[in-house]
Each structure stands twice: as structure tokens, then as C-alpha cells.
């Protein structure tokens, strides 16, 4: 059973460019959340997708957008990249709970470097 897979593992982009990161959730999971982890800090919630819609969003600008596909996989898009967007981007998958939080499993992350 494959866990959460993310691609690519590393990426270098120039300031002002756009980037797309991809995530395939754990088999049987229907919810994908994206997190940004700056060096030496805890992950920060960006947004969550369920049933192909953004269900919750953290304190991130509109430059950060996403998408969820019918097979539950997801993309994170970041436009107009800033140097401060350099971080490890993590995807977490879970099964939507019925009024109760459930286990979330993370991928290995995509290391984005903006130069």
C-alpha cells in the first residue's frame, strides 16, 4: 500500500515564476491538506481539499492556490514566487471524519528553493 507521494522532491525556481507541486494521497483517503515548513519551524497549514473543493484555508495569500482531482490527488500552485516562499512543502492525506479529527499522514515533501 503506497503512502502519500509527492513530486518533485526538489525544485529550484526564479523569483517571479510560477510553480506546481503534486500529491497523491494514501490509498483510501479522500482529503488532502498542504503545509509549508520553513527551515527550523513547524509546518504551517496552507489549505485543505475535500470533494474537489477548498474546504479550509490558512493565513496564506491568494498567490497560493490548489486543486483536487476526482481521483483525490491534488496540486499546489504558487504564483509570483518570492524568496520567502523557499520552504519544504508537505502534503498530508486523511479520511474525512464524521465530526471528529482523524489520522493524517504526510508525504516526504517538496523542497522549493526560490533564487
Amino acid at each position, binding site marked *: 500500500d503506497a503512502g*502519500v507521494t*509527492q513530486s518533485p522532491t526538489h525544485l529550484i525556481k526564479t523569483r517571479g515564476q510560477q510553480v506546481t507541486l503534486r500529491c497523491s494521497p494514501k490509498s483510501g483517503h479522500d*482529503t488532502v*491538506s498542504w*503545509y509549508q515548513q520553513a527551515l*527550523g*519551524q*513547524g*509546518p*504551517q*497549514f496552507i489549505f*485543505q481539499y475535500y470533494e474537489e473543493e477548498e*474546504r*479550509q484555508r*490558512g493565513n496564506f495569500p491568494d498567490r497560493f492556490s490548489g486543486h483536487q482531482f476526482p481521483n483525490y490527488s491534488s496540486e499546489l500552485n504558487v504564483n509570483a514566487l518570492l524568496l520567502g516562499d523557499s520552504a*519544504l512543502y*508537505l502534503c*498530508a492525506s*486523511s479520511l*474525512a*471524519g*464524521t*465530526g*471528529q*479529527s*482523524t*489520522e*493524517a*499522514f*504526510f*508525504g*516526504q*515533501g517538496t*523542497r522549493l528553493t526560490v533564487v
Partner: protein
Amino acid sequence: QQQVKQSPQSLIVQKGGISIINCAYENTAFDYFPWYQQFPGKGPALLIAIRPDVSEKKEGRFTISFNKSAKQFSLHIMDSQPGDSATYFCAASGAGGYNKLIFGAGTRLAVHP
């Protein structure tokens, strides 16, 4: 109110000793408290988790103690091993099934042989 405060920032323990990491929260709507272990260059791995209706949960050498009235919870690693050297994050998630995790700042644990 959405913060989770974690301490200490770093911890050095001798092999075979007990590692203790503490977290505190404010939001009483949190209903799920996981701990994650992260090695350099890797994603966080779920270690153990607890819900507020339980005061303690043990899995192997890892134990979570939960104090609902104090709004605090802690991770105890018994018989710490050099392979346990990693960064540990506590987190909290609110009710409603949304699974949005609020993370602590992390504790860098070093277990010396």
C-alpha cells in the same frame, strides 16, 4: 487561541534515559493531539496520538500523558536510543472532521550513546 506551545526547543539525553517533551494549548475545541517525528529532509511521520477523553496512551517506548484541565500534554520516550534523534512536533486538530493540524515549534532531540 489557535497556538500550540512546545518546550523545550532542544533536548540532549543519554542512551537509555527518558526524553520528555511538553505541549500546551488554549483552544478547548481541539479533539485530537498527535505527535510527529521528523528526520532531516523527510516529511513528519505520525508517532502516536491521543484524544481528550483519555489521560494516557502507550505504544511501545512512547507514551502520551494528557491533562485536560491544565490543557497540557506530553510525550515520554522511554529507554531513548540514538536512532530516536530527530525533531519531534506536537500538534492539535479541531472538531468537525477537518483534520487541520496546528503544530508546535518542534523539539530537536539528540540521544548520545
